[in-house]
């Protein structure tokens, strides 16, 4: 088997996550889909690392994880704050910034 299969899987997972972001209205689910996309990217990075025979890809994946963790913390805090004031976690409800 060629490790490129991992890349195909990564591409599919990434696309799935993107579709989830576009289709779901629950902010938490949207956020989970973003995490799915990040994970797909990580898989691709790890696979590249193996294919090229050095560890830089893994380092990059590590940084992605750290940043994703920070992002999750802040993002969930925002969701909680918004929910507290608007009693809704729907991303469509926060559509007031328009004419």
């Amino acid at each position, binding site marked *: 088997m060629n490790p490129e299969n991992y890349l195909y899987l990564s591409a599919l997972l990434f696309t799935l996550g993107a579709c989830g972001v576009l289709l779901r209205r629950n902010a938490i689910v949207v956020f989970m889909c973003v995490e799915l996309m990040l994970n797909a990217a990580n898989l691709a990075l790890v696979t590249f690392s193996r294919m090229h025979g050095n560890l830089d890809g893994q380092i990059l994946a590590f940084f992605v994880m750290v940043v994703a963790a920070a992002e999750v913390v802040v993002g969930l805090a925002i969701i*909680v704050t918004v929910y507290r004031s608007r009693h809704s976690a729907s991303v469509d409800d926060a559509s007031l910034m328009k004419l």
Partner: protein
Amino acid sequence: MSALASLAAETSTSTGEAAQFWLLGPLALLGGLGTVLMRRAVYSALCLAGTMVILALFYLSNGAYFLGMVQIVVYTGAVMMLFLFVLMLVGVSSTDSLKETLKGQQWLAAACGLGLGLLLVSGIGQASTGSFTGLGQANSGGNVQGLASLLFTRYVVAFEVTGVLLTIAAVGATLLTHRERLERAKSQREQAEARVRENKHLPPLPAPGVYARHNAVDLPGLLPDGSPSELTVNPTLRARGQMREVHRDALAAVRALEQRTNRHHGRPENPGIPAGQTNGNGANGNGADGVNGKGLAGSSAADGPAGAADEAATDAEEARK
């Protein structure tokens, strides 16, 4: 682990890895699909956790042992748990409608997704090579040691910066969710005094589900005339929209019981509920939307405790006059 290590060190993949991929890969895809398509957010979270675990296995088989462990501990363990906490906070049992509300969003999303997927796949296909290097050399001193030596030499600045980033994120999250209490919390005594002063709800609020023969906290208690009282349900559940509706059989039974009691006492037939109002208040008739169908009688009688049936009935009568 050593078997896995030898696997990744190879410059070609073994049959075992192929089997693992073809077994777990579709499972990971299914997990991703579930994340996107499940109506309940909790199920989505569980599907995502499954996918992440499978990805962790793939990391391991790709020679990224440290990352595989981190994936399980940090992602599946910490991040997904954080998601679940927030889900619990927001309302775990609520379901989302998957019906699209934005015009054309579905089709645009599908087109974009399909297009991007095809493009990526074709791009990978174009760039495919027959052979690869493998991590045998790079992992020779141990994967963790190799990562560490890179992280603390070439990537040390980025590493420090991510440390700062994490600190800022922690402080930011605390700041966002923190609510300053502007006044002292009222003691129980003060609350009671305030109730007396306002002359509202002097006795404790009625308990839920008294007449519904159901002890669930999310079922409203019924008033003497058979209409559900929202006051009986916890305000938090009400705010989340998680108040359950009373089954119409229960409502009918209450009415029958009431009538029987009246007959037994020789009182006029059903003084509380005139025919017209029963029809007007859909909640009593069919119980279809009992949660929201709080009628006039319900609101006027809601002041009285559910237990004091006679008193409430007279109240309702007075309110009508």
